[in-house]
């Protein structure tokens, strides 16, 4: 789509009869992203930036609200505050809906005072609760590595402006496990969080700061696509062991994800078509709605995704009648077709090598290069070198350009004087 203006926008959006997430009228105000964050797949694969005109946005919102009856409008894009005319758009919509029950929201990753001004425009009806910013990394050096050019000064000034103009809560998004990261970079997240917290408290005792820290998962089509992914153990060490089991979450303004989920995310993100076998096997082992914490409260069931494939006698004899070569080797098109069967779908245990007499491969071995092979003992996601020697090309790819040296013994968790308390 060269020109978004020419693309018919879905105006009559579905209005759910039961409560859902993202329950609002969404208008995509532009596609692509002006920033070049090196971890961000969406920003890489949606280039170039193509904007909708402010008049079009205004019209889409007005017609959409009238058609759907939604009480909330979301101005969506990868970084909505970066639309070249976002100021006029926000002012015009603010004028239209001032004094009504219709609220406007603007998800944004921009960290500057202008973002606060914009959010003020969109909340004239009085609801100033929370703002979210995504510095992504704690230290200037780390932010330079990921090309998220936000200075600490910017962030602190933004926090100052936000809290002085009546915002009560700031959420900050960070990642750990980024390429070249050291423990100092991790501790810098805490430093930054504490600095923002001091500003928050200076403007009111009830003001809050939440730090949300996720484990970095390298994504294809990004400069980090061959980077190593931290193991769940390493991410837990960096985050200071397990999440706090504290009945008063206010005292722990740190939100983290289950690092095991990142393993599955990495597997699905960087695996190729062979991942379909892993997905099928995980499903056969009982994986259902693994990311739905409403359903499964304990873990994401990572074991189902990383459990070694066992060979039952029945399936082995069935598959032994075929000549099948393990995929990912330098097989010819002919032999691959023979292995796929007539429909192209594989039968039998996924990823088990029937030609080589090696040990059974792991399910996760379907995804090459998910995690560096330098951590064979601890990583549940690993390739299986004994049964499937990697071809030269993929071996070269397995050397990520920015991988940390593996540590022989596990270093202690980073200690921060104020966090350690």
């Amino acid at each position, binding site marked *: 789509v060269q020109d978004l203006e020419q693309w018919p926008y879905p105006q009559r959006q579905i*209005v759910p*009869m*039961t*409560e859902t997430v993202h329950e609002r009228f969404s208008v995509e105000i532009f596609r692509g992203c002006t920033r070049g964050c090196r971890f961000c797949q969406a920003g890489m694969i949606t280039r170039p930036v193509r904007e909708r005109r402010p008049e079009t946005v205004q019209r889409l919102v007005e017609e959409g*609200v*009238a*058609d*759907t*009856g*939604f*009480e909330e409008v979301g101005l969506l894009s990868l970084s909505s505050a970066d639309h070249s005319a976002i100021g006029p758009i926000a002012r015009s919509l603010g004028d239209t809906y001032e004094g009504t*029950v219709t609220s406007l929201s603007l998800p944004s990753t921009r960290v500057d005072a202008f973002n606060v001004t914009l959010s003020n425009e969109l909340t004239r009806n*009085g*609801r100033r609760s929370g703002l979210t910013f995504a510095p992504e990394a704690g230290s200037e050096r780390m932010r330079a590595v990921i090309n998220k050019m936000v200075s600490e000064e910017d962030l602190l000034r933004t926090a100052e402006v936000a809290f002085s103009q009546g915002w009560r809560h700031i959420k900050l998004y960070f990642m750990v496990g980024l390429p070249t990261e050291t423990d100092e970079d991790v501790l810098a997240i805490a430093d930054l969080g504490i600095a923002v917290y001091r500003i928050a408290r200076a403007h009111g005792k009830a003001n809050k700061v939440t730090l949300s820290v996720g484990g970095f998962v390298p994504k294809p089509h990004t400069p980090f696509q061959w980077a190593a992914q931290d193991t769940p153990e390493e991410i837990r060490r960096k985050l200071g062991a397990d999440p706090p089991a504290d009945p008063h979450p206010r005292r722990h303004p740190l939100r983290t994800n289950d690092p095991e989920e990142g393993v599955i995310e990495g597997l699905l993100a960087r695996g190729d078509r062979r991942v379909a076998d892993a997905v099928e096997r995980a499903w056969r082992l009982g994986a259902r709605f693994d990311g739905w914490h409403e359903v499964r409260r304990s873990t994401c069931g990572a074991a189902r995704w990383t459990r070694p494939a066992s060979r039952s006698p029945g399936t082995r004899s069935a598959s032994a009648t075929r000549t099948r070569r393990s995929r990912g080797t330098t097989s010819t098109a002919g032999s691959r077709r023979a292995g796929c069967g007539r429909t192209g779908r594989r039968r039998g245990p996924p990823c088990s090598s029937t030609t080589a007499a090696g040990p059974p491969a792991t399910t996760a071995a379907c995804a090459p290069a998910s995690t560096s092979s330098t951590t064979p003992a601890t990583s549940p996601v690993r390739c299986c070198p004994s049964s499937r020697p990697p071809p030269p090309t993929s071996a070269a790819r397995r050397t990520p350009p920015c991988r940390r040296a593996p540590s022989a013994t596990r270093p202690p968790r980073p200690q921060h004087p104020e966090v350690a308390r």
Partner: protein
Amino acid sequence: VRWTKEGRTRFVSARDQSSIWERAIRRADLPIAYSEGFTPHARVSFPDALPVGVASTGEYAELTFAAPIRADDALARLSATLPEGMDILTYTEVPAGAPKLASLLRATLWELVWPPVDATALTTLLEQRCDTLLAATTHEVVRHRHDGDRTLDVRPAVVSLAVATGPTPDGSGARTTLRAVLRNDAPTIRPADLLVALGDGEVAPPTLVRRVAQGVPTDEVLAEALTGVGRDGRDDIVAEAA
């Protein structure tokens, strides 16, 4: 207004029902009044929540508008913007400060329909059980809930019970229908409680439970709330319930 909750909308919860109405009102562009406060809500109130899964042609709602409206036109538009299965049947305009709608809804006509299997035998069984229940002065049942069991007396709520065998809608078979008028006075007795009292574990669950109408109980009859009050003539529901 009296409205329906038929088809798949019978699976809408009372909580979701409010936002469905609020959005339909906004789509119909009606000048609904909003509550004051941090999170304003449209002034639409529903007197009595329906259990999820139960159909209804006897739902009621009270709407407060911020400006005068032409009710005929406005409610026709609202009926059109509500999801399929939710339709406005009738309405009455009342001045501010009129008696609460709930005070007009003192009894409910329920309809329970069974699948077309052994209809004659089921009808006979239910008739016997209904006679026994009506002849008794009390009949206690236990209602199991997540917060514990509760013992309820079903009998005081029962105004009338009528069992009949009739043809299925496509005319291919016969099915059993139970129509019950139950008082809404506390403790509220639901069709599920009535089934425990009648079935005693021997009656299969009905395929469909419907709240047909609500109103004022008269001698074994229900006078529908809106048509029986302040309007000429009586709803055909009245005759049906007899």
